[in-house]
Protein backbone atom coordinates (compact mmCIF):
# COMPACT_ATOMS: atom_id res chain seq x y z
CA UNK A 1 0.00 0.00 0.00
CA UNK A 2 1.20 3.44 -0.90
CA UNK A 3 2.86 5.40 1.88
CA UNK A 4 1.23 8.84 1.80
CA UNK A 5 3.08 10.47 4.70
CA UNK A 6 4.69 13.79 3.71
CA UNK A 7 6.18 16.75 5.61
CA UNK A 8 3.60 19.33 6.67
CA UNK A 9 5.29 22.01 4.50
CA UNK A 10 4.80 19.86 1.39
CA UNK A 11 1.09 19.48 2.17
CA UNK A 12 0.68 23.22 2.67
CA UNK A 13 2.42 23.86 -0.69
CA UNK A 14 -0.56 22.22 -2.42
CA UNK A 15 -2.88 24.97 -1.14
CA UNK A 16 -3.04 28.34 -2.89
CA UNK A 17 -4.78 31.69 -2.44
CA UNK A 18 -8.54 31.58 -3.02
CA UNK A 19 -8.92 27.90 -2.12
CA UNK A 20 -12.11 26.48 -0.65
CA UNK A 21 -11.19 24.42 2.41
CA UNK A 22 -13.24 22.17 4.65
CA UNK A 23 -11.84 21.88 8.17
CA UNK A 24 -12.79 19.14 10.61
CA UNK A 25 -13.45 19.67 14.30
CA UNK A 26 -16.11 20.91 16.69
CA UNK A 27 -15.04 23.87 18.82
CA UNK A 28 -11.42 22.92 18.06
CA UNK A 29 -11.85 19.29 19.19
CA UNK A 30 -10.66 17.22 16.22
CA UNK A 31 -9.37 20.29 14.38
CA UNK A 32 -6.00 19.85 12.61
CA UNK A 33 -4.14 22.69 14.33
CA UNK A 34 -0.80 22.10 12.62
CA UNK A 35 -2.26 22.53 9.13
CA UNK A 36 -3.96 25.77 10.19
CA UNK A 37 -0.66 27.07 11.55
CA UNK A 38 0.99 26.02 8.28
CA UNK A 39 -1.53 28.01 6.19
CA UNK A 40 -0.89 31.05 8.38
CA UNK A 41 2.89 30.69 8.19
CA UNK A 42 2.79 30.53 4.39
CA UNK A 43 0.45 33.54 4.19
CA UNK A 44 -2.24 31.85 2.08
CA UNK A 45 -5.25 34.18 1.78
CA UNK A 46 -8.73 34.82 0.30
CA UNK A 47 -9.88 31.49 1.65
CA UNK A 48 -13.39 30.10 1.82
CA UNK A 49 -13.69 27.96 4.95
CA UNK A 50 -16.39 25.34 5.47
CA UNK A 51 -16.58 24.13 9.05
CA UNK A 52 -18.99 23.48 11.90
CA UNK A 53 -17.90 26.63 13.75
CA UNK A 54 -15.17 29.28 13.57
CA UNK A 55 -13.28 28.12 16.62
CA UNK A 56 -12.43 29.67 19.96
CA UNK A 57 -10.19 32.78 20.17
CA UNK A 58 -6.55 31.70 19.92
CA UNK A 59 -7.38 28.21 18.65
CA UNK A 60 -8.28 26.49 15.40
CA UNK A 61 -10.07 28.41 12.65
CA UNK A 62 -10.26 31.55 14.78
CA UNK A 63 -6.57 32.09 14.00
CA UNK A 64 -7.37 32.29 10.28
CA UNK A 65 -10.26 34.69 10.94
CA UNK A 66 -8.09 36.88 13.19
CA UNK A 67 -5.37 37.02 10.50
CA UNK A 68 -8.04 38.17 7.98
CA UNK A 69 -7.11 35.54 5.42
CA UNK A 70 -10.70 34.28 5.14
CA UNK A 71 -13.16 35.97 2.76
CA UNK A 72 -16.09 33.62 3.35
CA UNK A 73 -17.17 31.05 5.92
CA UNK A 74 -19.92 28.48 5.54
CA UNK A 75 -20.68 27.37 9.08
CA UNK A 76 -23.41 26.60 11.61
CA UNK A 77 -22.21 28.64 14.58
CA UNK A 78 -20.02 31.70 15.09
CA UNK A 79 -20.98 32.57 18.67
CA UNK A 80 -17.79 31.21 20.26
CA UNK A 81 -15.55 33.46 18.17
CA UNK A 82 -16.72 37.10 18.46
CA UNK A 83 -14.19 38.22 15.82
CA UNK A 84 -16.21 36.41 13.13
CA UNK A 85 -19.33 38.40 14.01
CA UNK A 86 -17.30 41.61 14.13
CA UNK A 87 -15.88 41.12 10.62
CA UNK A 88 -19.33 40.08 9.39
CA UNK A 89 -20.92 43.28 10.75
CA UNK A 90 -18.08 45.34 9.24
CA UNK A 91 -18.83 43.75 5.88
CA UNK A 92 -15.33 42.32 5.42
CA UNK A 93 -16.27 38.68 5.93
CA UNK A 94 -19.09 36.86 4.16
CA UNK A 95 -20.82 34.44 6.56
CA UNK A 96 -23.26 31.82 5.29
CA UNK A 97 -25.03 30.21 8.23
CA UNK A 98 -26.21 26.66 7.68
CA UNK A 99 -28.06 24.51 10.23
CA UNK A 100 -25.58 22.00 11.62
CA UNK A 101 -27.44 18.89 10.51
CA UNK A 102 -27.96 20.36 7.07
CA UNK A 103 -24.27 21.21 6.79
CA UNK A 104 -23.32 17.63 7.71
CA UNK A 105 -25.79 16.19 5.24
CA UNK A 106 -24.82 18.56 2.38
CA UNK A 107 -21.20 17.48 2.79
CA UNK A 108 -22.23 13.85 3.02
CA UNK A 109 -24.35 14.22 -0.14
CA UNK A 110 -21.36 15.58 -2.05
CA UNK A 111 -19.17 12.72 -0.88
CA UNK A 112 -21.90 10.17 -1.60
CA UNK A 113 -22.63 11.38 -5.12
CA UNK A 114 -26.17 12.48 -4.32
CA UNK A 115 -27.92 15.37 -6.05
CA UNK A 116 -29.14 16.99 -2.85
CA UNK A 117 -30.92 16.54 0.45
CA UNK A 118 -34.59 17.04 1.32
CA UNK A 119 -35.04 18.28 4.88
CA UNK A 120 -37.72 19.84 7.07
CA UNK A 121 -35.02 21.88 8.85
CA UNK A 122 -35.13 25.56 7.92
CA UNK A 123 -38.63 25.61 6.44
CA UNK A 124 -40.24 28.98 7.24
CA UNK A 125 -36.89 30.54 8.18
CA UNK A 126 -34.33 32.71 6.38
CA UNK A 127 -32.42 29.50 5.57
CA UNK A 128 -35.14 28.68 3.01
CA UNK A 129 -34.81 32.00 1.15
CA UNK A 130 -34.29 31.44 -2.57
CA UNK A 131 -34.28 27.64 -2.24
CA UNK A 132 -36.50 25.12 -3.96
CA UNK A 133 -39.10 23.26 -1.91
CA UNK A 134 -40.86 20.00 -2.63
CA UNK A 135 -44.13 18.66 -1.19
CA UNK A 136 -43.96 14.95 -0.43
CA UNK A 137 -46.61 13.08 1.58
CA UNK A 138 -48.20 16.42 2.47
CA UNK A 139 -45.03 17.83 4.04
CA UNK A 140 -42.95 20.63 2.58
CA UNK A 141 -39.26 19.84 2.36
CA UNK A 142 -36.37 22.14 1.57
CA UNK A 143 -33.96 21.08 -1.14
CA UNK A 144 -30.39 21.58 0.05
CA UNK A 145 -27.58 21.11 -2.45
CA UNK A 146 -24.33 19.19 -1.98
CA UNK A 147 -21.27 21.12 -0.90
CA UNK A 148 -17.70 20.28 -1.99
CA UNK A 149 -14.30 21.83 -1.44
CA UNK A 150 -10.86 21.95 -3.01
CA UNK A 151 -9.29 20.67 0.20
CA UNK A 152 -10.37 18.81 3.31
CA UNK A 153 -8.18 19.17 6.39
CA UNK A 154 -8.90 16.21 8.64
CA UNK A 155 -7.75 15.90 12.26
CA UNK A 156 -7.22 12.24 13.19
CA UNK A 157 -6.13 10.61 16.43
CA UNK A 158 -4.38 7.73 14.63
CA UNK A 159 -3.76 7.19 10.91
CA UNK A 160 -1.86 4.47 9.13
CA UNK A 161 0.50 5.41 6.30
CA UNK A 162 -2.19 4.55 3.70
CA UNK A 163 -4.67 6.97 5.31
CA UNK A 164 -7.00 4.71 7.26
CA UNK A 165 -7.92 6.82 10.26
CA UNK A 166 -9.37 6.52 13.74
CA UNK A 167 -10.93 9.40 15.67
CA UNK A 168 -11.00 9.20 19.45
CA UNK A 169 -14.02 10.28 21.51
CA UNK A 170 -15.74 13.42 20.29
CA UNK A 171 -13.01 14.25 17.73
CA UNK A 172 -14.87 12.42 14.97
CA UNK A 173 -17.64 15.01 14.29
CA UNK A 174 -17.28 16.35 10.71
CA UNK A 175 -13.91 14.68 9.99
CA UNK A 176 -15.08 11.47 8.25
CA UNK A 177 -17.63 13.48 6.24
CA UNK A 178 -15.24 16.09 4.84
CA UNK A 179 -12.76 13.34 3.95
CA UNK A 180 -15.20 12.23 1.23
CA UNK A 181 -16.09 15.63 -0.24
CA UNK A 182 -12.90 17.38 -1.36
CA UNK A 183 -10.52 17.11 -4.32
CA UNK A 184 -7.48 16.84 -2.05
CA UNK A 185 -7.78 15.28 1.40
CA UNK A 186 -5.02 15.94 3.92
CA UNK A 187 -5.04 14.05 7.22
CA UNK A 188 -3.13 15.44 10.18
CA UNK A 189 -2.62 12.59 12.63
CA UNK A 190 -1.46 12.69 16.25
CA UNK A 191 -0.07 9.20 15.80
CA UNK A 192 1.00 7.48 12.56
CA UNK A 193 1.21 3.68 12.38
CA UNK A 194 1.85 0.99 9.73
CA UNK A 195 -1.06 -0.48 7.72
CA UNK A 196 -2.62 -3.32 9.71
CA UNK A 197 -1.96 -1.70 13.06
CA UNK A 198 -5.44 -0.15 13.17
CA UNK A 199 -8.02 -2.92 13.55
CA UNK A 200 -10.04 -2.84 10.27
CA UNK A 201 -13.19 -2.76 12.40
CA UNK A 202 -12.05 0.54 13.94
CA UNK A 203 -11.31 2.36 10.67
CA UNK A 204 -13.57 5.43 10.48
CA UNK A 205 -12.04 7.13 7.43
CA UNK A 206 -10.89 4.80 4.71
CA UNK A 207 -7.48 5.25 3.16
CA UNK A 208 -8.88 5.43 -0.39
CA UNK A 209 -10.30 8.90 0.40
CA UNK A 210 -6.98 10.27 1.64
CA UNK A 211 -4.30 11.93 -0.53
CA UNK A 212 -1.65 12.66 2.06
CA UNK A 213 -0.89 12.39 5.74
CA UNK A 214 1.09 14.72 7.96
CA UNK A 215 2.28 14.29 11.49
CA UNK A 216 0.64 16.59 14.02
CA UNK A 217 3.10 18.93 15.66
CA UNK A 218 0.49 20.10 18.10
CA UNK A 219 -0.03 19.00 21.68
CA UNK A 220 -3.69 20.12 21.75
Amino acid at each position, binding site marked *: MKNKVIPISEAIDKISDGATIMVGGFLCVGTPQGLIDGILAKGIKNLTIISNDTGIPGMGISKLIAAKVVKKVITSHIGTNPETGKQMMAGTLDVELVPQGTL*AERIRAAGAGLGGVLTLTGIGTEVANGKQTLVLNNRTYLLELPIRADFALVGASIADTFGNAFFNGATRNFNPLIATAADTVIVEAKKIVEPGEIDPNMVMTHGIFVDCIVRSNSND
Partner: protein
Amino acid sequence: MIDAKNIIAKRIAKELHDGDVVNLGIGLPTLVANYLPEGVDITIQSENGVLGVDAAPEKGKEDPDLVNAGGKHITIRKGASFFDSATSFLIIRGGHVDAAVLGALEVDEKGNLASHMVPGKMVSGMGGAMDLATGAKKMIIGTLHTNDGKPKILKKLTLPVTAVGVVKLIVSEMAVIEVTPGGLLLKEIAEGTTVEAVQAATDAELIVSPNLGTFSVQ
Protein backbone atom coordinates in the same frame (compact mmCIF):
# COMPACT_ATOMS: atom_id res chain seq x y z
CA MET B 1 -33.15 29.18 47.77
CA ILE B 2 -31.94 28.54 44.23
CA ASP B 3 -31.57 31.07 41.43
CA ALA B 4 -34.02 31.52 38.54
CA LYS B 5 -32.08 29.30 36.14
CA ASN B 6 -31.98 26.44 38.61
CA ILE B 7 -35.69 26.86 39.41
CA ILE B 8 -36.38 26.44 35.69
CA ALA B 9 -34.02 23.47 35.30
CA LYS B 10 -35.54 21.72 38.31
CA ARG B 11 -39.08 22.10 36.96
CA ILE B 12 -38.10 20.94 33.45
CA ALA B 13 -36.49 17.82 34.90
CA LYS B 14 -39.99 16.67 35.95
CA GLU B 15 -41.02 16.58 32.28
CA LEU B 16 -38.51 13.86 31.44
CA HIS B 17 -39.35 10.18 31.55
CA ASP B 18 -37.31 7.14 32.42
CA GLY B 19 -35.55 5.88 29.31
CA ASP B 20 -35.82 9.15 27.35
CA VAL B 21 -33.13 10.22 24.90
CA VAL B 22 -32.68 13.91 25.65
CA ASN B 23 -30.65 16.71 24.10
CA LEU B 24 -29.87 19.55 26.50
CA GLY B 25 -28.86 22.85 24.90
CA ILE B 26 -25.94 25.00 26.01
CA GLY B 27 -26.29 26.99 29.25
CA LEU B 28 -29.43 26.73 31.39
CA PRO B 29 -30.69 23.47 29.77
CA THR B 30 -27.50 21.67 30.85
CA LEU B 31 -28.55 22.22 34.49
CA VAL B 32 -31.61 19.99 33.98
CA ALA B 33 -29.42 16.89 34.40
CA ASN B 34 -28.74 17.92 38.02
CA TYR B 35 -32.42 17.64 39.01
CA LEU B 36 -33.67 14.35 37.56
CA PRO B 37 -36.27 12.76 39.83
CA GLU B 38 -35.30 9.48 41.46
CA GLY B 39 -35.88 6.52 39.19
CA VAL B 40 -35.65 8.60 36.02
CA ASP B 41 -32.67 7.47 33.99
CA ILE B 42 -32.13 9.29 30.71
CA THR B 43 -29.57 9.08 27.90
CA ILE B 44 -28.17 12.51 27.08
CA GLN B 45 -27.25 13.13 23.46
CA SER B 46 -24.82 15.87 22.53
CA GLU B 47 -24.83 16.95 18.89
CA ASN B 48 -21.04 16.93 18.56
CA GLY B 49 -21.33 13.14 18.59
CA VAL B 50 -21.95 11.61 22.01
CA LEU B 51 -24.72 9.47 23.49
CA GLY B 52 -24.45 8.88 27.24
CA VAL B 53 -23.05 12.21 28.44
CA ASP B 54 -22.35 12.29 32.17
CA ALA B 55 -21.23 14.96 34.64
CA ALA B 56 -18.24 17.26 34.29
CA PRO B 57 -14.92 15.64 35.27
CA GLU B 58 -13.01 16.51 38.42
CA LYS B 59 -10.48 19.26 37.93
CA GLY B 60 -7.29 17.84 36.50
CA LYS B 61 -9.03 14.78 35.05
CA GLU B 62 -10.29 16.40 31.82
CA ASP B 63 -9.89 14.41 28.61
CA PRO B 64 -9.32 16.83 25.69
CA ASP B 65 -11.25 14.51 23.33
CA LEU B 66 -14.34 14.40 25.59
CA VAL B 67 -16.49 17.52 25.33
CA ASN B 68 -20.14 18.40 24.85
CA ALA B 69 -21.64 20.64 22.17
CA GLY B 70 -20.80 23.66 24.31
CA GLY B 71 -17.13 22.67 24.29
CA LYS B 72 -17.26 21.83 28.00
CA HIS B 73 -15.38 18.82 29.30
CA ILE B 74 -17.58 15.87 30.13
CA THR B 75 -17.37 12.31 31.34
CA ILE B 76 -19.37 9.50 29.78
CA ARG B 77 -21.52 6.74 31.25
CA LYS B 78 -21.03 3.04 30.81
CA GLY B 79 -22.71 2.16 27.52
CA ALA B 80 -21.93 5.54 25.94
CA SER B 81 -21.06 5.80 22.26
CA PHE B 82 -19.53 8.23 19.79
CA PHE B 83 -20.46 9.01 16.19
CA ASP B 84 -19.93 11.52 13.40
CA SER B 85 -22.06 14.60 12.73
CA ALA B 86 -24.19 12.91 10.05
CA THR B 87 -25.21 10.16 12.48
CA SER B 88 -25.72 12.75 15.22
CA PHE B 89 -28.26 14.62 13.13
CA LEU B 90 -29.81 11.41 11.86
CA ILE B 91 -30.59 10.78 15.54
CA ILE B 92 -31.96 14.31 15.92
CA ARG B 93 -33.82 14.74 12.64
CA GLY B 94 -35.02 11.17 12.45
CA GLY B 95 -37.19 11.43 15.55
CA HIS B 96 -34.91 9.39 17.84
CA VAL B 97 -34.66 12.19 20.43
CA ASP B 98 -37.60 12.14 22.86
CA ALA B 99 -37.09 15.63 24.20
CA ALA B 100 -34.90 18.62 23.47
CA VAL B 101 -34.47 21.41 25.99
CA LEU B 102 -33.30 24.68 24.47
CA GLY B 103 -33.06 28.31 25.49
CA ALA B 104 -34.81 31.11 23.60
CA LEU B 105 -34.54 34.77 22.76
CA GLU B 106 -38.28 34.84 22.04
CA VAL B 107 -41.16 32.36 21.82
CA ASP B 108 -44.60 33.18 20.51
CA GLU B 109 -48.13 31.88 21.01
CA LYS B 110 -47.94 29.75 17.85
CA GLY B 111 -44.94 27.87 19.24
CA ASN B 112 -42.50 29.69 16.97
CA LEU B 113 -38.97 29.96 18.34
CA ALA B 114 -36.30 32.63 17.86
CA SER B 115 -32.92 31.72 19.30
CA HIS B 116 -30.10 32.35 16.86
CA MET B 117 -29.77 36.05 16.04
CA VAL B 118 -30.62 39.67 16.83
CA PRO B 119 -30.14 41.48 13.50
CA GLY B 120 -27.45 44.15 13.69
CA LYS B 121 -26.44 43.12 17.22
CA MET B 122 -25.87 39.47 17.97
CA VAL B 123 -25.38 36.68 15.49
CA SER B 124 -24.38 33.36 16.97
CA GLY B 125 -25.79 31.14 14.28
CA MET B 126 -28.29 28.37 14.70
CA GLY B 127 -25.80 25.56 15.34
CA GLY B 128 -27.94 22.47 15.82
CA ALA B 129 -31.00 24.36 17.14
CA MET B 130 -32.98 24.37 13.88
CA ASP B 131 -32.54 20.62 13.42
CA LEU B 132 -33.29 19.89 17.08
CA ALA B 133 -36.38 22.07 17.08
CA THR B 134 -37.62 20.36 13.93
CA GLY B 135 -36.71 16.78 14.80
CA ALA B 136 -37.15 16.28 18.54
CA LYS B 137 -40.42 14.63 19.59
CA LYS B 138 -40.96 17.17 22.36
CA MET B 139 -39.47 20.63 22.30
CA ILE B 140 -39.19 22.25 25.73
CA ILE B 141 -38.02 25.84 26.09
CA GLY B 142 -36.32 26.84 29.32
CA THR B 143 -36.03 30.61 29.56
CA LEU B 144 -36.14 33.54 31.93
CA HIS B 145 -39.62 35.03 31.65
CA THR B 146 -38.36 38.48 30.68
CA ASN B 147 -35.19 40.09 29.36
CA ASP B 148 -34.39 43.44 31.03
CA GLY B 149 -38.04 43.60 32.05
CA LYS B 150 -39.27 43.00 28.50
CA PRO B 151 -41.46 39.95 27.84
CA LYS B 152 -39.87 37.08 25.89
CA ILE B 153 -43.17 35.22 25.46
CA LEU B 154 -44.91 37.14 22.71
CA LYS B 155 -48.01 37.23 20.51
CA LYS B 156 -45.70 37.27 17.53
CA LEU B 157 -41.91 36.97 17.19
CA THR B 158 -39.99 40.15 16.41
CA LEU B 159 -36.69 38.33 15.73
CA PRO B 160 -35.85 35.99 12.82
CA VAL B 161 -37.52 32.62 13.33
CA THR B 162 -35.34 29.60 14.17
CA ALA B 163 -38.16 27.04 13.80
CA VAL B 164 -41.85 27.34 13.03
CA GLY B 165 -44.54 26.00 15.38
CA VAL B 166 -42.32 23.52 17.20
CA VAL B 167 -42.41 24.57 20.85
CA LYS B 168 -44.61 22.33 23.01
CA LEU B 169 -43.82 23.63 26.51
CA ILE B 170 -42.31 26.82 27.93
CA VAL B 171 -40.86 26.78 31.44
CA SER B 172 -39.75 30.03 33.07
CA GLU B 173 -39.00 30.98 36.67
CA MET B 174 -42.60 32.24 36.84
CA ALA B 175 -44.69 29.76 34.89
CA VAL B 176 -45.20 26.51 33.01
CA ILE B 177 -47.00 27.21 29.75
CA GLU B 178 -48.19 24.70 27.19
CA VAL B 179 -48.50 25.69 23.55
CA THR B 180 -51.93 24.50 22.35
CA PRO B 181 -53.77 25.05 19.05
CA GLY B 182 -56.05 27.49 20.94
CA GLY B 183 -53.16 29.51 22.42
CA LEU B 184 -50.87 29.50 25.43
CA LEU B 185 -52.25 27.49 28.34
CA LEU B 186 -50.96 28.57 31.75
CA LYS B 187 -50.63 25.26 33.61
CA GLU B 188 -48.56 26.17 36.65
CA ILE B 189 -47.25 29.27 38.35
CA ALA B 190 -44.23 29.49 40.64
CA GLU B 191 -44.91 29.48 44.37
CA GLY B 192 -45.21 33.06 45.55
CA THR B 193 -46.31 34.57 42.24
CA THR B 194 -49.80 35.28 40.87
CA VAL B 195 -51.58 34.73 37.56
CA GLU B 196 -51.80 38.52 37.23
CA ALA B 197 -48.05 38.93 37.69
CA VAL B 198 -47.35 36.23 35.08
CA GLN B 199 -49.76 37.80 32.60
CA ALA B 200 -48.25 41.25 33.21
CA ALA B 201 -44.81 39.86 32.31
CA THR B 202 -46.16 38.11 29.18
CA ASP B 203 -47.00 39.80 25.88
CA ALA B 204 -49.19 36.94 24.60
CA GLU B 205 -52.57 36.34 26.18
CA LEU B 206 -52.59 33.37 28.56
CA ILE B 207 -55.46 30.94 28.95
CA VAL B 208 -55.52 29.95 32.62
CA SER B 209 -55.92 26.21 33.11
CA PRO B 210 -58.91 25.21 35.27
CA ASN B 211 -56.42 22.89 37.02
CA LEU B 212 -53.81 25.57 37.62
CA GLY B 213 -51.01 24.26 39.83
CA THR B 214 -47.90 25.67 41.45
CA PHE B 215 -44.27 24.61 41.33
CA SER B 216 -41.46 24.87 43.83
CA VAL B 217 -38.84 27.60 43.84
CA GLN B 218 -36.75 25.90 46.52
